[in-house]
């Protein structure tokens, strides 16, 4: 679902929830907590828009893996966190890392949602795309271009990492498929 929601709507929705006039507004104010126009707001907005990226990466992978190994681990006496750390994470590590990289890319490029909740407090609630926009609006062309170049460079780096990992996960999935296929053989 979050995939299809416009980031600006997400920002607005956070504003309505945590803003001064929002549902949790009075409670937050009473406890002296700031969400909107502050760092937590940026984090929440980014999580909301990046969450589906990692979910879409991991759900099919975990479905393909099945729950057999987890059940086996439980039968061998593993506790919840041991199960997760020793069995689940190693099996999905490449997919997870791939998801993290995509998330990172999405977070770097996110503009709409953070734009709404940031409040444009320079040096405090800034992300790189927001700063690029601000510099551009202030006719600071060299600054805007410099920062934009850094973003573009990071994008290239991400692309490189993504391609490497894609290749790794594909190989791992193929190996899983092979293991299942040869399971019946002697």
């Amino acid at each position: 679902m979050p995939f299809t929601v416009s980031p600006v709507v997400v920002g607005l929705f956070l504003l309505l929830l945590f803003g001064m006039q929002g549902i949790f507004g009075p409670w937050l104010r009473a406890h002296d907590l700031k969400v909107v126009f502050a760092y937590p707001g940026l984090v929440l907005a980014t999580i909301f828009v990046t969450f589906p990226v990692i979910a879409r990466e991991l759900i099919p992978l975990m479905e393909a893996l099945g729950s057999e190994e987890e059940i086996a681990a439980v039968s061998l006496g593993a506790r919840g966190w041991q199960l997760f750390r020793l069995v689940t994470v190693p099996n999905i590590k490449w997919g997870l890392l791939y998801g993290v990289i995509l998330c990172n890319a999405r977070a770097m490029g996110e503009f709409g949602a953070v734009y709404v909740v940031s409040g444009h407090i320079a040096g405090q609630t800034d992300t790189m795309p927001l700063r690029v926009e601000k510099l551009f609006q202030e006719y600071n062309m060299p600054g805007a271009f410099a920062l934009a170049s850094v973003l573009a460079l990071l994008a290239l780096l991400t692309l490189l990492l993504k391609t490497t990992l894609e290749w790794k996960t594909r190989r791992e999935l193929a190996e899983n498929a092979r293991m299942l296929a040869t399971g019946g053989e002697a």
Partner: protein
Amino acid sequence: MSISVKNVTKRFGSFLALDNVSLEVPAGELLALLGPSGSGKTTLLRIVSGLEVPDAGAVFYQDEDVTDAAVRERNVGFVFQHYALFRHMTVFDNIGFGLRVRGRPKAKIRERVRELLHLVQLEGLEQSLPAQLSGGQRQRVALARALAAEPKVLLLDEPFGALDAKVRQELRTWLRRLHDEIHVTSVFVTHDQEEAFEVADRVVIMNKGRIEQIGSPGEIFEHPANPFVMDFLGNVNVFHGSVQAGRAHLGSMEVSYPEYPHDESRAATAFIRSHELEILRAKNGRPSLEVKVTHVNPARPVVKVRVYSEAFGVVLNVDVPWDRYAELRLQVGDTVYVAPRQVRLFVQEYTI
């Protein structure tokens, strides 16, 4: 450690998987749960292990009620049909997993894994990954892994189901030997009766969530409790007839059945195993059926002959020993007589 299951019932939605099942497994026994798919055998095993919780009833290990205990607290060894090995761990780490999560010291783990590798005859493969092993080797790793933490009971869910016939046969013999060596109370699920009869001390035959019969392989084979068991064991010819006043009428055959002395006629089903039928060239006064030979298969330790009875309208399978076959010189199309040596009759419950 003995296991007792008391009045266990389990439903999955509207499907009744187990219907008030009770079972005792004495300490050190190797028990087989045998039945067609959907008979509830795997559900029963999973309830004993704690992977599944019963809707009603209780499970005891020795005298301790473990019905509500988590799998982790029960200390069972569970072997899965598809091995469920940890694919990213080496054989060594797989086997040592149960000890590692229990926080045993590294040296202890190493020692125990060595011991188990020797037991399952996989020395030298400790650094291999599951994907590099054959099916039979994987299942032995799974077994070693289940045994590592010295479980009180060992539970195996169709352990050889995914293996080919030859490896299955080898592992069967091997499991029996292993059990004789370590004597841990074991329960295994299978739908292969040959496997159950060959490996287990006692066999439990299940059908539709109920236990049909419990007994040693010999007992079950010699005295099947009911038509289901008889039919499930296979290699059997079924006749539908009636009983009256101590006689059973099966088409033109009449055999004595003193267990039913009543005058009222009742429908009955007769089971005659294929090796309990004898082929005769001529009638000899014993109850027999006139049949025509339709097929002869001499590619077995016994010759499998298929005959057709026109009067009865049934095809019968008869096992003929080789020397008898040579004597008879059977040809397809011959008219011969079959006489039962032994008939098992089940009189139907009275229904209108």
